């Protein structure tokens, strides 16, 4: 088993865990955590493909990942703000109860 395969396995596992969390959790924050996990799995793939790819000296993978993490941070900020707003409005953070845009 090559290091790349190990990395991909880990990242696939991570993604699966994130996905399961995002799909099954009813709490908004936990669903958001699941999404962050899937994102990190994707970042791990970027690093792995760069590190064991054709041009490890080009630094493209690192740049991509930094971008991606920055975007994920921004996204998490927006997502958390939304969750707080939803909570304030609906007095709940249970996603099943937040079904209506109108209100």
């Amino acid at each position, binding site marked *: 088993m090559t290091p790349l395969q190990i990395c991909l396995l880990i990242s696939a596992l991570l993604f699966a865990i994130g*996905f399961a969390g*995002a*799909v099954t959790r009813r709490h908004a924050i936990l*669903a958001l955590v699941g999404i962050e996990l899937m994102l990190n799995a994707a970042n791990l793939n970027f690093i792995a493909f760069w590190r064991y790819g054709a041009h490890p000296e080009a630094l493209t993978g690192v740049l991509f990942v930094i971008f991606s993490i920055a975007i994920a941070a921004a996204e998490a900020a927006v997502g958390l703000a939304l969750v707080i707003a939803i909570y304030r409005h609906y007095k709940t953070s249970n*996603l*099943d109860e937040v*079904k*209506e845009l109108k209100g």
Partner: protein
Amino acid sequence: MIWIVKNLWLIPALPLLAAGIIAVNKQPARKLAATLAIGSMALGFLLSLCAFAATLGHHGEGAFRETFSFNWIQFGGQWMSIGWVLDPLTAIMLVMVTFVGMLIFIFSVGYMAHDQNFMRFFNFLALFASGMLGVVIANNLFLLFVSWEIVGLTSYLLIGFWYHKPSAAAAAKKAFITTRIGDLGLLLGMVWLYAQTGTLNFYEHGHGCMEASALAGMVSKTICGGMMVSTAIGLLIFLGAVGKSGQVPLHVWLPDAMEGPTPVSALIHAATMVAAGVFLVARVYPLMAAGATPVEHGAPVTTALTVVTWIGAITAIFAATIAVAQNDIKRILAYSTVSQLGYMMMGLGVGGVAVGMFHLITHAFFKALLFLGSGSVIHGCHEEQDVRKMGGLKKYMPVTFAVYAIGMLALAGFPLFFSGFWSKDEILHSAHNWPVSHIPFLLGCTGALFTAFYMTRQVALVFFGNYRGHEEKSAHGHSAHAHSHSSESAHNHDPHESPAVMTVPLIILAGFAILLGFVGTPAWPWFDGYLTGEEFNFDFSKLTEPGTLSLMVASAAIVFTGLGLGWFLYGKRQRKTAAEKDVLEAAQPAIFKLLENKYFIDEIYEATVIRFNAFAAWLCDFADQWIFGGAVLLVKYITIGLAWLYRLTDEYFVNLGFDTGCEALREGGGGLSKLHTGRVQTYLRVIGVALVALIIFLIWGRKA
């Protein structure tokens, strides 16, 4: 240009204005209506005198003629111009119409005094005068036609003035429709004339349609049968004159027109309107006479003028014989008018404008006099019109009797002192010299005999003998004078003399009935010279020339025979009662019946023209109902069938198809909408499952 020529339009405009003002005023304003109408006529008369004066003193230098035209409407590239003309013909007619009209208006004030619709009457009279004067001054066949139709309209309105009488309403319709037949000819002639010459102006410094160049163009062209175009147009225009002037065969309306008030009969159906036809022929005389075969002396001879002569001569004798057997005082005069109009036409045909117009003018005065006299008689006898129920009125109405006798003698042509003698003599003289045929002359002479006879009969029956009105009145009450007569006269059955407002116009007219003859005697042919602009002299010897003198003696003899016969049969031995048979009826019942029923012309028309018309109407109705109606019905059923088919298709095909489709879509949408829970996590789950499935598929697909 003289000021009067430019302002000639004022003469018809004044009565028109008066009519307009009367029309918009509130009803009981009798004095205003009468004042306006009479005032406008009086002013018109003064202007006419000015116009007349302007045309005087041009003897020996050709006829005086001034025109004033202006462009009126444009169609295509051409302008229709209208205008008026002042020449002796216009001037003499203007003076006659305004003067006679004015007198009749004044008379009407008395005659219509009790009528409720006094204002309407004067409104129509003024409108009529306007139309008539328009006809007279027109220098344009189009303007003439418009005025002509105004005249026809007012004639209709005034004949039917007492429209609550069914006979009056019917007479009005008859008059309107009959004259319309003639007017159709006039209209066609007018259109044809315009097509030929490009103008409808009579005189326009050499470019008018009655002037040499246009006439030469029309003479040179012929239509089928070698008839000159000018002749054809002339005959068409003459057809209009036949209708308006009550010539055979369109004379039937004129006697019936006597249903109108008597002043109307006098003004419209004796003095002016019916003379409009004669005037029209005189106006288009150059057209009628165009292309004449040269004759050494006298008037030109053309086909058109020959037709005019024959129609006139036949009408003259025809109507005169009918007048013999009539019993209604106004009907006798009506047939007399028809007969005299025939004389005028004959005079135009055989002798030219001057001869016909002279009789027109003299006739206008004495026939207006006779009609107004008869109006006075009718008024005095409490609306009685049957001469058999009159009699002895000489005693009760001396003034009316005197003036009526003058009118009667003038109409009969009593020699030397009365105008009718001179004018009729001139016609007979011209007819005698007519190169084509002598029959019109003989017809005219016979007509003159009858004229003298029936007028004597009428006067004898009305004014001599004893009053026969009482028997009838006491038996039948006052049904004959139901309307327009106040109650105070009903208590007094004796006839009474009319008030001065009625007798004074009569006296004036009587004066003219005598004097007017002297302007056209053979010794001093002023009238002839005035109209033609030729030199003439006072030449007493012309009276005693063999031809003239013998003719005068002959016509005098004829008149005396007629007068004598009439007096012998009706004057000497008066009828005792109103119901007694007429002398002629006792002697010749068959002929009298024929004459009394006007040769059964109305019945013949009833049996031919009207039945044909009814048949044509029936045919049209049949065609309308079955042929066109059938076609329409067919279209209707086809449409209904198609509509039914469309509905079926719509309902069972289109609708059903759509309904089913829509139902299916709706249900499908309903099913699908269940998938949309609105839960992002559900979607995400689906995406995840789909992704796993896709990956499995890709992996296995790669292996395969």
